[in-house]
């Protein structure tokens, strides 16, 4: 097969798309779990520990948001390697993007939890639920419903951000695209295929979120 033909280009880029999806999925899971945990601690921690917790979580969120994700990936990949801890590009990308995403989602979840009337949780505690049960049955279902549009935005942004993992040689779409361009010089065709591939991954994700929003909103 001619390496410059469209099927050959697509086959190569598809391998990259798989890596991109792995990075995006891993980073999303890390961001979701850590972001939610930080938000719960941030919002519900009580008096003696509240000040210190707000300070630490606030600092984390600011730091992660104010530094480009690319810089985080470089530190995790090249920085750690120089002190003898070599991460694979994929692991470095998942960790870096996940830690940045956790800061973004911590803000999103915190805002939704604060927007929920405090009485909703109080009513749950007053009828004998433990704080954990109140969180599971009253707070989180509503917070997830409120934040679904923001989560959808984050997911699409994350998929696009996997492109920067090419800078640490993670074999994703743009990494293969660039190497194909240098060997075949089919520049517009290859980047066109790459764009098509991103769109065809992101579009279903958007569609799924929109559908989920409609379904969760339909009950009420």
């Amino acid at each position: 097969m001619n390496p410059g033909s469209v099927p050959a280009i697509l086959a190569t880029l598809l391998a990259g798309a798989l890596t991109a999806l792995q990075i995006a999925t891993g980073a999303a899971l890390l961001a979701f779990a850590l972001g939610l945990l930080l938000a719960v601690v941030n919002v519900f921690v009580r008096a003696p520990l509240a000040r210190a917790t707000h300070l630490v979580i606030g600092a984390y969120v600011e730091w992660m948001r104010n530094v480009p994700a690319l810089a985080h990936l470089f530190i995790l990949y090249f920085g750690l390697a120089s002190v003898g801890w070599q991460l694979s590009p994929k692991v470095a990308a998942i960790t870096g993007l996940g830690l940045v995403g956790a800061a973004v989602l911590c803000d999103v979840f915190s805002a939704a939890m604060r927007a929920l009337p405090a009485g909703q949780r109080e009513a749950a505690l007053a009828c004998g639920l433990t704080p954990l049960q109140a969180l599971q049955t009253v707070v989180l279902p509503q917070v997830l419903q409120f934040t679904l549009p923001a989560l959808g935005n984050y997911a699409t942004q994350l998929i696009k951000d996997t492109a920067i993992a090419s800078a640490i040689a993670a074999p994703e779409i743009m990494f293969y695209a660039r190497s194909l361009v240098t060997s075949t010089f089919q520049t517009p065709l290859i980047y066109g295929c790459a764009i098509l591939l991103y769109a065809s991954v992101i579009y279903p994700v958007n569609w799924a979120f929109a559908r989920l929003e409609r379904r969760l909103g339909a009950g009420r």
Partner: protein
Amino acid sequence: MNDTLLTVNGLKKSYGGTPVLRDISFSLRKGETLSLIGPSGSGKSTCLRCINFLERPDAGEISLDGERIGRVMKRGRERDMSDRELAPQRRHIGMVFQLFYLWPHLTVRDNVALPALKAGGMSRSDARKLALQSLDRVHLLHKADDYPERLSGGEQQRVAIARTLAQKAKLILFDEPTSALDPELVGEVLTVIRELADDGLSMILVTHEIRFARDVADRVIFMDGGVIVEEGPAAKVIDRPQKERTRAFLGQVGAAEGLPA
């Protein structure tokens, strides 16, 4: 004979140096309906919220059926319980809020079933059965499958009452249950509360409905400025108040309600 359900002794609470409750003491017998009345800011709601420790009192003792509420001895030191430690105690103290606080993502039936299911450890089918029984008691069985936002304010408050009933608490606290309702919806909620009082439930009712308090409560406590000014049988305190402050307050609200001052 010991038929005392609740004792509150020496309750104190301040917010940022401003005292809201100054040494409140009273008790409640089993099956009794007690009404707390008084002007806004007199500490009625705070007092109520201290009983189930939604507010942590600064000082004082609360006991329900002989069990100390909200305090625990650990390693020789007494301290406030955490919310997790409080959960089993709060199960026995139901609370109805001014703004209902139903959970909007659950149907009416699931709102009522949740306490029994989660706090009571009931099976799903038993909890749902109990929920329907409770809804029947507030005459809203036909709304079981609706979401709360489809209901009127009065109906929402009756669902909140059903939710508290399903909790099978020893004591129910009502925190101004009709204050957020349109005037024409107040009656249906009061009717339900009256039925519960007639059924012999133990209740404490913070309310601005003075006439209702007189009719339904066995006893009335009048609070002002964080202290109990006067207490006694409902008809006595409201019809023949002994203290000048009680008379002044009843005169104001009496005028608004068309009662003889």
